[in-house]
């Protein structure tokens, strides 16, 4: 768990400055500024419709902001397309899984691998030896990941036959294939059965220990508390508060934002400091 906050001096990996985005009359994101630091899992929480996914889309370049800037890894990426940002190492998953249905799981994974050594007409024909080698290498990584996600059995099947939960798993596994500098995860565990979700959370934690930086949107606050530090709370399109989960747990504002708006979250009590402490040894084991 990345609990030591000693390295605050390091430059943020991604920085959003005053981002705003409206859809017609709906102001989905209003003047949002946030930073995520290398080596951290930055949590993004907030009620339904708070603008979390929209913010993620603005960071990834799937949506253009009405105003504001996005800086990633020393580049101003505000005007860059999503594919250009992806090539810089900024990769996202979607809240609603988007499998490439009529392609096999392995082919989905190879798209995630972002190896482009055989992807133009010229390279496909002239660069054969190179791309075959790369494909072999990526394939082995894909098999490892699919095994970890309990999907290996289906590796050569079309992604369209997967169940909803399996599609979520593929979504996450495919994004991991890219080994991005920063991984933007939009509710990766939603709809995954609890024991596997727990396992995946371990996996995400392990990746983070290996240095993977992430921004994670998640409603399950136990998981957020366990994985994320810092956590940013979004409500009505603006940043309401940020800090470690235990700090946020004490904030009346945050409690209001949650308890006032959604039944789903109010059914799950906001995580307490003692719960966090109970989770901690498990994560460090």
């Amino acid at each position, binding site marked *: 768990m990345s609990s030591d906050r000693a390295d605050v001096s390091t430059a943020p990996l991604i920085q959003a400055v005053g981002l705003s985005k409206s859809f017609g009359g709906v102001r989905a994101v209003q003047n949002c500024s946030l930073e995520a630091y290398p080596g951290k899992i930055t949590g993004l929480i907030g009620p339904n419709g708070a603008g979390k996914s929209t913010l993620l889309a603005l960071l990834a370049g799937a949506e253009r902001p009405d105003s504001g800037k996005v800086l990633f890894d020393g580049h101003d990426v505000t005007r860059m397309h999503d594919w250009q940002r992806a090539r810089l190492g900024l990769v996202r998953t979607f809240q609603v899984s988007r499998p490439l249905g009529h392609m096999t799981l392995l082919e989905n994974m190879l798209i995630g691998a*972002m190896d482009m050594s055989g992807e133009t007409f010229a390279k496909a024909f002239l660069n054969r030896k190179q791309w075959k080698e790369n494909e072999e290498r990526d394939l082995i990584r894909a098999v490892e990941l699919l095994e970890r996600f309990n999907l290996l059995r289906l590796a050569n099947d079309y992604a369209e036959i997967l169940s909803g939960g399996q599609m979520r798993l593929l979504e996450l596994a495919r994004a991991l294939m890219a080994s991005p500098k920063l991984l933007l995860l939009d509710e990766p565990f939603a709809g995954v059965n609890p024991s596997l979700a727990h396992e995946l959370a371990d996996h995400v934690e392990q990746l983070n220990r290996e240095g993977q930086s992430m921004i994670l949107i998640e409603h399950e606050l136990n998981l957020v508390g366990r994985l994320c530090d810092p956590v940013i709370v979004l409500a009505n399109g603006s940043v309401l508060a940020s800090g470690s989960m235990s700090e946020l747990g004490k904030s009346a504002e945050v409690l209001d934002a949650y308890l006032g708006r959604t039944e789903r979250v109010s059914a799950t009590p906001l995580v307490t400091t003692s719960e966090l402490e109970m989770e901690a040894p498990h994560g460090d084991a």
Partner: protein
Amino acid sequence: MSHYLYYALTLGVYFFVYCLLGLGYNLQYGLAGINNVANYSFVAFGAYLAAVTTLGPSNSLVQSYILGTSIAWPLPLLVGAAAGALTSLVLGFIFLLRLRHQYQAIVTLVVAQVIWLLVGNNPGLFNGYNGLAGVPQPLESVVNLAPVPYEAFFVGITALCALLGFAFMRRVVRSPLGRVLRAIREDESVASCFGRNVFWAQMSAFIVAGTMAGLAGGLLVEYLGAWSPSGWSPYEGFVVIAALIIGGTANNIGAALGAFIVPVAIYELTGFIPPFGPVNAQTIDAFRWIAIGIIVLLFLWFRPQGVLPEPRRRFRLVDRILVGQEPIPGKGLFLSQKMHGSDATSVVTDETK
């Protein structure tokens, strides 16, 4: 007897030319997911350019056209292919930048119609609605053959082009490029958020498909000796689309099968229906279109993937892992051991440590 042989060879020419067209259409529609109904415009440009570079300078008393020269065969074919490529590049900016799905299809249809009207109504371009005639057949004087052997010779030329196209497409489908194009067809945002430039990937497929169409047009005009708007109305493109839908979208063999079923079997064989009672040559021509339309409709309803569905690419490495012939990479253990209880698992993982 030689009549039948001649006729069979004629069908051979059509078959191979439509193979080439079907393969090109498979590239843009079957793989890259571009909904282009203007595909026959590229054939037309290929044909016109191959014709004017064979005919020599225009004699406006007979027929007027631009760019008239006379270059040695097979250069006119290459010019035709280049014309297809160039038109694709230009129109690609209209078709591929913002348009998707049915809107894309509608715009391509409109553009095809505009091109058709422009060419027809500008006699200075390619002799208007009268079109170009008198295009000599390739190497006629060199090979110096009787009609039937020459016909066989021409079948050979078209077969060679179709085979090259087939070999080319086979490689494309199995390459990472083919995978990216299919990914774009399935969900372009996914391709794009994994670093693929969707526009240029589609554009390159579109240009290559246009090149194949241009080459096919060159072959057609060299075979027919004439080319005019009545022979390339936007509806002709429908034959190619119908062939791919029936044969099997995203399947190269399906494209060839479709080229046999639609332009050869249905289109040509209906020509054998003898006129009887109220049925004359015109009604038979109408029957032909109705038949193609109904068959396409039936396929879209009951077998949208076509006779031969898209082949699934299996990776043998994984098949070997699944049947236990190879260990899971990074784990050093076999799938069966993993499945059969924790004892086997722990023993093996301990051994590998």
